[in-house]
């Protein structure tokens, strides 16, 4: 057997080029939707609506970035929606108890860290599948949140906190700035640091990563802690936006986050993903929802369109990958 004859390497497209191409395609799709809605409606390109759209997409985008870290390790985090609701309760509760705002924020984020660490503990030490452990916390956290609030909501009276989500900075909603605040470190972490490489390696082949000296357990802890912390951060933003802590908020957001991530090119089999992909995915979903509202499309159709979009985009992504092999 001569090595040259079995080589298909020459036909395999260099990976980075493909990734950029896919990102540009998503960006093109997003711009196309924006142009389309601009022509189809009078109200789309109004400052009010654009701000609204950016606010809508921001929270899903942050969840999707955290979710992507987990999916790259070939895991899944079903709990993020519940974590958002739970942490909104926590921050409202802390503020109601007279804890200063800065301490309330730090403590709430610390809860995110703890929840993520618990997920990783379940996976690494107890050997539970990620799907199961995060499904369990999805249910339990909602229950704990409801116990704390006794089934009702906790109002937030701290105006500095509630004004934040309505504020603009340089004409852009502060919530969208938060996406940038998360995305830049996330990009550095995933694409420029060695820990990002380890996430990919663990997702691709954890045994090979381990035998190459990668601390697989630590990498899994890192991924789940980041996901839950992103979710806790979104919980803060949501509490600020709606002015209450309520454990039943953010129902189904975990699926929005997973959908955004997958539309953004993340592979549920692990080892494929980026930071810009899920961001674009989240805003594509937000645009579809926003546009459907403006066009007075039955909101039930939004769900159907979202489902169809997931199938189409992931199918084309699969085709692309197969031809790249």
């Amino acid at each position, binding site marked *: *057997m001569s090595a040259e004859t*079995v*080589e298909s*390497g020459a036909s395999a497209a260099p990976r980075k080029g493909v990734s950029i191409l896919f990102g540009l395609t998503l960006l093109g799709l997003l711009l196309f939707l924006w142009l389309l809605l601009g022509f189809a409606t009078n109200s789309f390109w109004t400052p009010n609506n654009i701000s609204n759209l950016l606010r809508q997409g921001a929270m899903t985008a942050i969840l999707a970035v955290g979710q992507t870290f987990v999916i790259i390790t070939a895991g899944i985090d079903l709990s993020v929606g519940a974590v958002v609701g739970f942490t909104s309760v926590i921050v409202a509760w802390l503020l109601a108890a007279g804890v200063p705002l800065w301490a309330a924020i730090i403590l709430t984020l610390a809860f995110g860290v703890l929840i993520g660490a618990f997920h990783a503990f379940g996976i690494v030490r107890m050997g539970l599948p990620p799907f199961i452990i995060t499904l369990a916390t999805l249910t339990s956290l909602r229950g704990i949140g409801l116990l704390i609030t006794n089934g009702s909501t906790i109002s937030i009276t701290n105006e500095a906190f509630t004004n934040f989500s309505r504020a603009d900075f340089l004409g852009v909603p502060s919530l969208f700035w938060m996406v940038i605040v998360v995305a830049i470190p996330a990009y550095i972490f995933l694409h420029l640091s060695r820990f990002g490489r380890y996430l990919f*390696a663990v997702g691709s082949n954890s045994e*090979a990563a381990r035998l*190459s*000296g990668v601390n697989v357990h630590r990498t899994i802890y890192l991924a789940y802690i980041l996901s839950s912390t992103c979710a806790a951060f979104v919980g803060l933003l949501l509490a600020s936006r709606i002015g209450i802590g309520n454990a039943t908020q953010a129902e189904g957001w975990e699926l929005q986050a997973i959908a955004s991530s997958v539309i953004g090119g993340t592979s549920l089999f692990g080892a494929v993903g980026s930071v810009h992909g899920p961001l674009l995915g989240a805003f594509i979903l937000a645009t579809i929802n926003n546009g459907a509202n403006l066009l007075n499309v039955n909101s039930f159709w939004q769900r159907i369109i979202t489902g169809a979009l997931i199938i189409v985009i992931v199918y084309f992504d699969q085709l692309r990958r197969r031809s790249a092999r």
Partner: protein
Amino acid sequence: MTELQEDRDVRTEGLQVATRHPVPKGEPILELRALQKKYGLVEALKPASLTFLSGEIHAIVGENGAGKSTLIKLLTGVIKRTSGEIFWCGKPVQLGTPQEAIERGINAVHQEVVLCAHLTVAANMFLGDEINRNGLMRKRAMTDAAQRVLDDLGFNLPAGAVLGSLTIGQQQLVATARAAMRGTQFLIFDEPTAYLTRQESAQLFRLIRRLQAEGVTIVYISHRMEEVFELADRVSVLRDGTHVGTRRIGETNEAELIALMINRTIEQIYHKEHFPPGEVIVETRNLSGPGFQDVSLTVRAGEIVGLYGLIGAGRSEFALGLYGRHRPSAGEVYWQGRKVEIASERIAMDLGIALAPESRRDQGLCLNLPIGLNINLPVFNRLTRGLTINGQQERENADRQIRDLKIKTPSRRVLASAMSGGNQQKIVIGKWLSHGAKLFIFDEPTVGVDVGTKAEIYRLFARLLEKGAGIILISSYLPEVYELADRLHVFRRGRLVASHDYRAASHEEVLTQAIGV
């Protein structure tokens, strides 16, 4: 077998009673004429002509990679032949699908049990051929029928038990019983006793003899010479994909068979340079762990220590134990004279141990990631400046290994899965060359690797030795360790059973020690 016939009578559908003795005993039942199988350019089975006689027990022996499993897969319709003809009862047949093979009465019992572990013994025995009445399964009838078959065969097994609760050996007996009750005329056993206890083996042999008495033709594949001589009427030897001979069992002996098995036509050049042995790099004293017991050996700078044995003999397990992947349970490791506890892979790497593991696919590479990332995986901590990786160093490091090792790829960004076996092995080696080590463990480094790359890998060994490294070379391919190792240790069933200096023992002697005849 009247019991079996009755069992079939209770069925209302799916009935397939094959007539036994389609050809008279002693006449050819299955004939292979110039049967050949190629995978790409690799010839897994060179044109082989072989005749199986009705009612005989025909043993097939050969080393790992000699083409035995290819032959089984061809006969059971799992893979399609490249060329040649197969005659069944005198007529040419396709044997293109497993269904066709089963319908003709050709069955195989594999070394790894391929049944459903969560179903009961009875359900497994009737799988795909269930007893039905009005479209509903008759569980009780199947359990009773299965129990009668098992009792009749003399297996002390409960038909109602879940298969997974039985030992591997017992599962193997179930698989055999399943094949036996399906009107099988031609039954292939692939190393059936590998996991069996002595008692279970005896039960299996009784069953085989009984099937033979009923006219079933048996093909028996085994490493164990004593079994071949106990059971077989005739024996065929495969070597490097070639059928090198068939002997009547009374007209041959173990020495002749072993000579046939290994007397290969070696065209590869085993590049070997001798260096004066230096200081002791690592010494294990009575090291035991999962899969290996009581292993004591030393590796010096400038020498290759070969570990030879059959697959599952404990060599790879020993390597993983030494590398910190599995915690040794007893014994000591001395690294350059100092006692060490290697509790993790990281500790092993920091000491200076590198491991190119047995399976590139499962242990060696992140296949769906780029070559560059794979090469740099052990050294990202060194490439990191502050928070981020130094991109230029990362690229240079990958490109240097690709260049030095002549990995045939247009770019470091190509996925590792797009590479051939030889180039994949080079990526694994490149990983450890860029990391650097004092002791290199190569586990089966040339499996699935083309001849040219093999020679390159052997020359690389010499370069490593020259720089003062030591090498542990693990191989199931005797000529490789035989020609390269300065000291050769033979493993059998988890233990180090013999040690030889460079070329001090004959091939026959080493193989005999590994097989344990």
